[in-house]
């Protein structure tokens, strides 16, 4: 019998130790914090049970943050996947300068969230914004639209910015999936008279659906835990119009200096994320990852 079979624990230890150090310990520490009163300005850290959870859930912000986060997921995840797939299908075709276009499409992906936020603030800015300037010069509006102040429009603005930052990654993954599809089947369908939509629906999609599901889950989680873009673009406002749960973790912890409450929100986010993954996975057909 080989050593690896006789001492399996010893062989997985080099992997388990970093996982324990960088994942289990911080999560356990956060759980401990959520059950204690941990305020930077107070020296004692007494056990408070579920008091932090009660405080944040029944506070003035949680309901709004939860609603906004779920809506954000609902809009962003499908939009990223749909736009990403469409762009990938387009870029798959050979055309002049395709290589350059493919590189440029990736640009938003490499920009840090805060930089993207600054760019989008200048797009939506009421006085100097590109968008208002464009709409005015086209004669479509007379007065500036307060994109980042109107409580309804501001949500549209952050969805647009978030989708813009996430689409490139979706494009890359869908293009990778497309490169493995059966070209001959598509050619055969063309000869049989299938139009582009039919070819996508009946031939391409079944071959890339596993990737689409992975992207959907990934984007649902990315949207649910989005923080930097919202922080830099709107600061969660106006009021609570763009306050997401991940932003609320920061606000409870670093704005109100209540790490107990912040950790409680973090654990709620973890629980909802787990439910989200389960729900999406359950909704998918069981043969998803089988060979098409």
């Amino acid at each position, binding site marked *: 019998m080989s050593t690896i079979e006789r001492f399996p624990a010893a062989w997985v230890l080099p992997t388990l130790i970093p996982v324990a150090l960088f994942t289990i310990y911080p999560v356990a520490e956060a759980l401990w914090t959520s059950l204690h009163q941990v305020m930077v300005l107070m*020296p004692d850290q007494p056990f408070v049970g579920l008091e932090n959870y009660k405080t944040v859930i029944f506070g003035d912000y949680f309901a709004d943050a939860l609603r906004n986060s779920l809506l954000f997921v609902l809009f962003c995840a499908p939009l990223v996947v749909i736009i990403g797939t469409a762009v990938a299908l387009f870029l798959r075709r050979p055309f002049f300068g395709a290589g350059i276009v493919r590189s440029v499409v990736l640009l938003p992906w490499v920009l840090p969230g805060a930089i993207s936020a600054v760019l989008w603030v200048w797009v939506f800015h009421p*006085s100097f914004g590109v968008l208002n300037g464009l709409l005015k010069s086209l004669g479509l509006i007379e007065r500036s639209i*307060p994109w980042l102040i109107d409580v309804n429009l501001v949500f549209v603005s952050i969805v647009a910015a978030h989708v813009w930052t996430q689409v490139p990654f979706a494009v890359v993954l869908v293009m990778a999936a497309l490169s493995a599809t059966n070209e001959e089947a598509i050619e055969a369908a063309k000869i049989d008279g299938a139009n582009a939509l039919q070819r996508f629906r009946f031939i391409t999609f079944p071959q890339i659906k596993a990737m689409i599901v992975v992207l959907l889950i990934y984007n649902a989680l990315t949207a649910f835990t989005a923080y930097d873009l919202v922080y830099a673009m709107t600061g969660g*406002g*106006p*009021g609570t119009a763009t306050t997401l749960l991940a932003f609320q973790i920061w606000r409870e912890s670093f704005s109100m200096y209540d790490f107990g409450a912040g950790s409680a929100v973090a654990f709620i986010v973890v629980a909802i994320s787990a439910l989200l993954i389960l729900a999406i996975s359950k909704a998918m057909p069981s043969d998803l990852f089988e060979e098409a």
Partner: protein
Amino acid sequence: MKPRMKAWFGALAIAGTALTAQPALADVKLEFVVWNYSIDTIQDNIKKFEAENPGITVNLTDYTWPDYQDSLLLRFRGGTQTDVVYGGQDWLPAWAAAGYLAPLEDIAPAETLDALKKDIAGFALSDMTYKGKLYGLPYYADTISFLYNKKILEEKGIPVPTTWDEVMAASEKLKADGMERPIVYEYNQELPNFFDAFVAQTYSRGGDLFDADKKAIFDNPENAAYQQLQWLADAFAKGLVQPETHESKIIPAMNTGKHAFTIVYNYVLAAMNTPGEQALAGQFALAPMPGSAQSTLGFTKFYAVTAKTAADAERAEAAWKFVNFMAGKPYKVAERWAAEKGLGFGQMPLFQNKDVIDAWQKWVDVPTLEKQVASARAGTWTEWTVIWSAYFRPLLAKAMVGEASVAETMKAGAERWNMMQARFAK
């Protein structure tokens, strides 16, 4: 032991003590922590201090303004050597209560402190005092000001407003004449300025958010804060307000000539009136904050010494020398900040300083400002104010844009304040 030997040992001991003690005295290296405004000027001031005080060197560490308080708290809690810091009126009660800072009375001669106190503006002295003890000397002190575009008002024949109703009427007239949004407002619920500006407007109406026992009273519809929030909500609802997320955006916005009024820290006026940098420089002026009292909020950032440093006699002495150099008489450093950078000051004699007046009258009417500084009031700063303000600001923002009612907002804010007061009292 023979007397001669005793004498030799005694002499050796004295020489040894002198040899070991001297380098320690000569090598005090202070850790000075600031936010990253005008680092070159700070470094130059440090150089001058070091030249005047051989044996003391100062190492400067800076953080960005948004990260400053968090970074400093981590330094305090982590035990990182920190001797002199920039403090703020809003942070003082919590930092002092937590034992991070030391009162200057512990390290400075009483008569020197008394002489300095006499020169400091009332609100600034209050801002730096916690439980009767003075915790700092002013780095800069300023007020929140009501600024307007002189040219626009003159052209439209609108007198400078003296009440909030007049501001509303003037804005409505300007809007009717084609100005889209006459008021630019710093609207960023994550910034303390957002709450400070609201307090300043409450003071201008002659009111306060809290009573003498520090109980929240602003949920009463008769309260000045309640009325001012209603005023702001009305102004937003009428489309008179152009919100901007930061003062740095207000400067170019006002310089477009598309807005007539704003409420910001006074130093923003200096930037707005800088010739060569701003298109409409010279058109902007300060007016007393509208309202029956015409008072405003004053605030103070100051040099403070940590409790850890105060406990070490040698470092404490060096730290006091440094603080006194930066903020004490003859106020050369404060004068430099005022003249070169337009920073406000808490040392009232600087209003009679020719260099300061010469520099300031290029962008502000100095007598009007002096009157405003003299009548400015300090905020209500408690151990929980910063935490509560972080909670209250988004509620305030919601009410301004009509996402919540004024009554709901004030009720929720007052309940939270009273809850926190009870919690901290425990």
